[in-house]
């Protein structure tokens, strides 16, 4: 890398209005650091506390999902975390490379959650709480339900197939007051 290529990466982030951009191998400790950074950033931007709480919640839940999926695969890849500003909303992205089998599971869970009406989310959430002992699939669904409840938005995702084994998956949610 040199100064020119650095500037290109920087310009990409700025042009796409990413106000926080982090890439690295996230683990629980790093996740806490990430939350600190976001908190600092959002404090500087005079963001309402309820909005901050939503963003943190999304970060924590998605990161735990990605981390758990990483552990199940032989390959530990870097994750990318971005916050972009769009008018009064913030778009929060968290993504990484995962094995296809894992990705499929995550997507099915997200799609199931997104079909639920807002009024059904709460019931589903508490119903699932009672069956979490059955296995990790329910924990995943629980996590997604939690995100949807707290943010009040659908969980979008971007899926790019890389090769026969792996895909790039990133979660995205828009968070407003």
């Amino acid at each position, binding site marked *: *890398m*040199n*100064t*020119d*290529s*650095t*500037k*290109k*990466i*920087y310009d*990409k*982030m*700025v042009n*796409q209005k*990413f*106000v*926080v*951009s*982090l*890439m*690295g*191998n996230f*683990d629980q*400790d*790093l996740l806490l*650091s*990430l939350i*600190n*950074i976001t908190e*600092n*950033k959002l404090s*500087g931007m005079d963001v309402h506390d309820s909005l901050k709480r939503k963003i943190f919640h999304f970060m924590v839940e998605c990161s735990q999902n990605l981390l758990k999926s990483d552990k199940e695969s032989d390959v530990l890849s*870097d994750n*990318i975390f*971005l916050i*972009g500003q769009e008018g009064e909303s913030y778009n929060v*992205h968290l*993504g990484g490379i995962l094995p296809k089998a894992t990705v499929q599971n995550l*997507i099915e869970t*997200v*799609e199931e959650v*997104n079909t639920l009406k807002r009024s059904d989310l709460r019931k589903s959430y508490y119903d699932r709480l009672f069956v979490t002992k059955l296995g990790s699939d329910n924990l995943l669904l629980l996590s997604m339900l939690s995100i949807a409840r707290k943010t009040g938005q*659908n*969980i*979008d*995702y*971007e*899926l*790019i197939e890389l090769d026969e084994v792996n895909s*790039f998956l*990133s979660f*995205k949610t828009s968070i407003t007051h």
Partner: protein
Amino acid sequence: MNVLVKPSLNVFDLYTTMFSNRVLLIYQGLFDQQMIKTVLSMTEMKLVKENVNENVKKKVFNIMMEGLQNICKHQFLKEETSHNPMLLISRDDNHHHIFTGNTIHNSKIELVSSKIEQVNGLDKDGLKELYKKARLNSVISEVGGAGLGFIDMARKSENPLEYRFFPINENYSFFILQVKISNQ
């Protein structure tokens, strides 16, 4: 359905760009002391995971601190420009690279360039002498201490500093400094 069947031009593009350039960490935004602490902590964890040699780790860490303190001192806090400061760390087979970026008023370009060129023109002993003088000057006046950071980074990295100014408008440019640390 929420599947984006076309490749995303945003997140994935940024991801692959950073991945292909072996970027370990990148942050852009305003810096304060808490932010510095957090970023340093993240870097330390990253370097431990990468099994980086202890000596190299120490150099990366110390030079980062120097660079971050400089950013804090010189970053613009008002909305004079849309260019927030930046920190990026990458590695290749031979070096770790620390890049810092911040906006600079064009009137300061000549001074900054001359200080870096002066530092790059010196050997180890020359840098040591210059450092002593600069430290003495920094005790006498803040202006006299300018450039102490560059000297310190050059001494610790044992490599010439690389830099570039990217024009933003008629008054400001974006200054990127690159410090190389050998992996041996």
